């Protein structure tokens, strides 16, 4: 189990590092895609281990446990957002926060309809 957790920690740290490096190359003080890089590193490690039959179920458990903890973490995150000030800082913040989201739903719909011919195999 600890091997899985360690693999996850390794991917996480490497990904965050890559994100920080990309951020400083671009000259911005932010982590660019750290989580994305970490996910891709973890996936590559998983493929590599599966091919060599080294991926034990115990290892999977060490990683899946954290994956399942994701929703509780999101609930805790929602509880620690500054909801009150967001809602009370005036109508401009609320409109500028909500209206673009509605527009983006339309943009999203247009986008996936245009990409459909190439993505028909996209089932889980």
């Amino acid at each position: 189990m600890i091997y899985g957790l360690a693999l996850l920690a390794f991917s996480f740290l490497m990904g965050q590092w890559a994100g920080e490096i990309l951020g400083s190359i671009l000259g911005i003080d932010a982590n660019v895609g750290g989580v994305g890089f970490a996910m891709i590193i973890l996936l590559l490690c998983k493929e590599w281990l599966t091919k060599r039959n080294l991926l034990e179920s115990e290892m999977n458990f060490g990683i899946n446990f954290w994956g399942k903890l994701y929703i509780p973490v999101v609930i805790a995150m929602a509880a620690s957002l500054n909801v009150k000030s967001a809602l009370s800082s005036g109508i401009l913040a609320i409109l500028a926060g909500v209206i673009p989201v509605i527009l983006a739903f339309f943009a999203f719909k247009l986008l996936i309809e245009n990409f459909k011919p190439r993505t028909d195999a996209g089932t889980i």
Partner: protein
Amino acid sequence: MQELFKVIDQNGLILAFLLIGLLYFVSDWLSRAIFKRRIPGSAIAIFGGLGLGYLGGLITNGNKGFADLELFKGVGFLGGSMFRDFTIVATAMGASFFLIKKSGWIGLASLITGTLVFFIAGVLIAWTFGYRDAVSLCTIGAGACTYIVGPVTGGALGASSEVIALSIATGVVKTIAVTVLTPIFAKRIGLDNPTAAIAYGGVMGTSSGVTAGLAATDPKLVPYGAVSATFYTGLGCLLCPSLFYLILELLTAS
């Protein structure tokens, strides 16, 4: 009683596990008993979390929601960026590298579409509210992208602290709006497969909002939405204070 408070004070994170567990239990029960499973328990729990965040702000006037209550500071730690990012990465185990690779182009297209839609809409709304200078317009437009892009842009351009605060508030409202609206609209906009989730993450951008919204819609889609959303804030921080600002400056000067 004093002993109990001492234990709680020293084990804030453990108390947070208990608290979130209880909240989930109640939400699951509500989902079954009242909504007949039409609204998933996780969605109700996330909404409940937002409610607690509001309550916390009401009681303490702080800026970390429920986590500002001394007894519940562990909630802030559990919901902080370290646990959030670590658990998102762990969800990648359930994703397919093949699908992510195949969806690279739509991911990129969605990132650009998303940044443009949010920035332009944000700027236009700020304009109708009377802002006319390029710096303020750009900062609020950046805030409409995410609550990190807003202050990063504002800081780079030297916007007033009032405008920066407004841009953060805008970004937080966006996160909440995406969280709440995703499960409601998911079916209608065709958000039911990994490719769509990658595009969705790129269009909406807010990592917290996208992943929370997808968690409430279908947890299998979370890693796909997260993998593209994680690039959004970086792209916004890159484009808003540079290219977008220059364009705005040209437009407002004329």
